[in-house]
């Protein structure tokens, strides 16, 4: 019998689509729900389990037991994937779940003994799991994150829910030569953010099955791009957009490009600018959520990948949802901005897509021009 542990943080990622950023704390989650956010973590956990079951094969499915908590903390996802569960923890009825529930579930699951522990959540959840398990070397089982959060700076996550299922299958089959590596648990450094830098703090390590390309890298700190490179990218963007709306994803590159165009935008939110040649840009939306972006009408969408990881969509910019991307015109209206240095630092790994819409991810996959300067592009691969 193969035993897989699962803990789901049901509020992880709730803030993404509505432009709230992370969902740390119950107040933020309630606000997100009041703004129309829909929980995603349970479905993404189910997708990971489904992929694991599919890869394990029909005969192995009966031998797969998911050790988890009741309801939204895991059992709902196991049921959705059509697998057998064993419930070892239940949160109190009628109250919001919290970090304490994550920790209690993790402790109860590992006490039962599992071959691998899945957790579905973001960087905050990863910190909770780390806190419950202890230091590397004494962690009793391999751990793998199913990405459902907003920021996702840690290296303990698969690149998508399906990839989590793939990696788990490869690890549990013991045939693919998959080794464990201690991967970084990171979270955004809020102090640095206050100073205008997006950087991460290291909180510890968790042992993760190492399947290159399918398990994400940690985010690297933002480095100041040279003014020439940013100015060149900004000039190219201005020419391509001409007169029109430009939605800018989060990050230090897009913020520097906006500054070169003459607009001060937020570092972590999604903003929209109205561009008109010969005039300074006008900010038409700040910290926009999905609904605001949809209401804007046709727009160019400028994104910059996350340094080190290469994520272009699905991490930190969930507001730019599949609906927003389709409404904008898809691939043709997407402007990928990146300095050559940041692109080179990916070491040949593709830019990653995890919008939650496989058909859209497939449509965007393949080689796409990345704007690296004035009249300069790099043809670079996007992959799901």
């Amino acid at each position, binding site marked *: 019998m193969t035993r897989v542990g699962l803990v789901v943080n049901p509020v992880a990622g709730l803030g993404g689509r509505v432009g709230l950023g992370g969902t740390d704390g119950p107040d933020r989650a309630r606000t997100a729900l009041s703004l129309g956010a829909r929980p995603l973590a349970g479905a993404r956990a189910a997708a990971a389990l489904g992929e694991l079951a599919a890869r394990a094969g029909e005969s192995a499915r009966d031998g797969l037991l998911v050790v988890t908590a009741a309801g939204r903390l895991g059992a709902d996802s196991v049921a959705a994937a059509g697998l057998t569960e064993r419930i070892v923890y239940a949160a109190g009825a009628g109250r919001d779940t919290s970090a304490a529930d994550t920790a209690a579930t993790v402790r109860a699951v590992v006490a039962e003994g599992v071959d691998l522990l899945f957790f579905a959540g973001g960087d905050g959840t990863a910190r909770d799991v780390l806190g419950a398990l202890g230091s590397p070397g004494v962690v009793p089982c391999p751990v793998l994150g199913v990405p459902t959060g907003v920021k996702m700076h840690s290296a303990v996550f698969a690149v998508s829910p399906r990839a989590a299922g793939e990696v788990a299958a490869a690890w549990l089959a013991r045939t693919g030569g998959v080794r464990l590596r201690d991967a970084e648990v990171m979270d955004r450094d809020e102090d640095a953010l206050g100073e205008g830098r997006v950087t991460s703090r290291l909180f510890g390590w968790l042992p993760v099955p190492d399947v290159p390309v399918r398990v994400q890298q940690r985010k690297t700190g933002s480095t100041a791009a040279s003014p020439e490179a940013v100015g060149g990218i900004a000039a190219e963007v201005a020419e391509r957009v001409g007169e029109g709306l430009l939605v800018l994803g989060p990050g230090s590159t897009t913020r520097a490009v906006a500054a070169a165009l003459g607009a001060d935008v937020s570092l972590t939110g999604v903003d929209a600018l109205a561009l008109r040649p010969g005039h300074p840009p006008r900010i038409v939306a700040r910290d926009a959520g999905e609904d605001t972006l949809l209401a804007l009408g046709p727009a160019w969408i400028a994104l910059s990948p996350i340094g080190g990881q290469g994520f272009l969509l699905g991490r930190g910019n969930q507001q730019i949802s599949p609906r927003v991307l389709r409404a904008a015109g898809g691939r043709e209206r997407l402007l990928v901005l990146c300095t*050559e240095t940041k692109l*080179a*630092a990916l*070491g040949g790994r593709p830019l990653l897509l995890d919008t939650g819409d496989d058909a859209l991810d497939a449509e965007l996959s393949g*080689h796409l021009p990345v704007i690296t300067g004035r009249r300069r592009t*790099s*043809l670079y*691969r996007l992959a799901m």
Partner: protein
Amino acid sequence: MTASHAPVPVSPEEARIAGKPRLRRFQQASWDEKLIFELGSPGERGVLVPAADPSLGMPAIPAALRRSDPPALPEMSQQQVLRHYLRLSQENLGADLNIDVGQGTCTMKYSPKVNDQFVRDPRIAALHPLQDEDTVQGVLGIIHGLEQLLKEISGMDRVSLQPGAGSAAIYTNVAMIRAYFAARGELDQRDEVITTIFSHPSNAACAKTAGFKVITLHPDADGYPDIEALRAAVGPRTAALLITNPEDTGIYNPRIEEFVRIVHEAGGLCSYDQANANGVLGITRARDAGFDLCHFNLHKTFSTPHACGGPAAGACAVTEELAPYLPRPTVELDPETGTYRLDDDRPGSVGKMRPFYGVVPNLVRAYAWIMSLGAEGLRAAAETAVLNNNYLLHKVRQIPGVSVPYAAGRPRVEQVRYSWEKLHQDTGLHSEDIGLRAADFGTHYWTSHHPYVVPEPMTLEPTESYTRADLDEYAAILAEIAREAYEDPETVRTAPHRSTIHRVRPEALDDPAVWAVSWRAYRRKVLGEAGR
């Protein structure tokens, strides 16, 4: 043996790797040397420059161009000049004193001293570019002869030796590409040039300077330029592919003919940057792979002094179709009379890329080098360069902390881009730190051009010039530095310790308010003298 001359201890591991070479104890000289403009005294002189021979047909300098005052040059004897420059040469890691394996893509092969005798010969040294054609038949014959040799080496139809090397030659080829499409009325449509991230940055820079948009291809998992990206990049807007092969990783792209075919099918031209031709000389030819244009850097492949913004010489070679656009003047041979003439009447030409007809001393050196080796010798030089490179590769890849990205276990052509990523992760030291510590052993290396696609890069290119003992010593130096990095990282982090100058502040090199490339600029910017 005194302590100062004692061999640096070598560990058993390094001895095994490097065959127990002795690491020389290097100490760079440090002179309190003034600038040459601060030396000498008024009225003192070294040589008297002879007046031009009236029989050479030199025109007089027009009165309007003559100086009213003599130039403010230093006045000093030959001996003072000699001492000054000998002292300066000892404050450098000069090519004649070192194993220049680490010059990377800027190939520093040996330039035979015997060839300098030809250059010093008054028949070359006393030439003036304004002489009448009938007085320079000999040098025009050498230029024409060198063109014929380079035609054979490249497989192309016509060659121009007028451009400078490197960027000047690449720019010449881009200018010819632009002229070609302008003549066909396609320039407005074809405004994109494709290049690769491992090609020399000059390819992208020259294309952009000439008004093209630049599309860069990144490597695939094996380190080859991604052919799927090429297919996605080509189209009706494609003017040309500018590509280096082997690229600066030392990896030869075996699908180069397919690259050329894909671009040709889209109506674009293909230009071969042969900066790395040293390892394929006499083995492959640009024309045979289908290219329309190519260039050589004579200093890299044909053993002439390096340029560094100075007397570099390039050779641009083209097919017959592109010959009308070559720089002017061209050197033409009248087969009936056996005389040479300069043809300046070329209406399609991209114009002059350099004054007159190129850097004659380097053309003479290159001609002498090729003639002394012959076809078999050129091929032997390339084969020796490849053998040396792979011998060094075998040794360096065993040094702790070094890796060789891409094409695992396969040999390379004439250079390798290594990575110190493992050593960096283990010790926090960067490739630049290793390079600066290498200066303490009397040698150096180059990292890579930016951006660093290979993390913590180091690019080594031994060429055919170095002996097995040289390569053993170089590998042993790297092994010694790697050992220090793990055992005593501060020594590496604070290097160099035996050089004239410690670490240079690179930001000054990028700051026009500080840099001073002339005595006049130095007095204004550094000494703060006003009005200059």
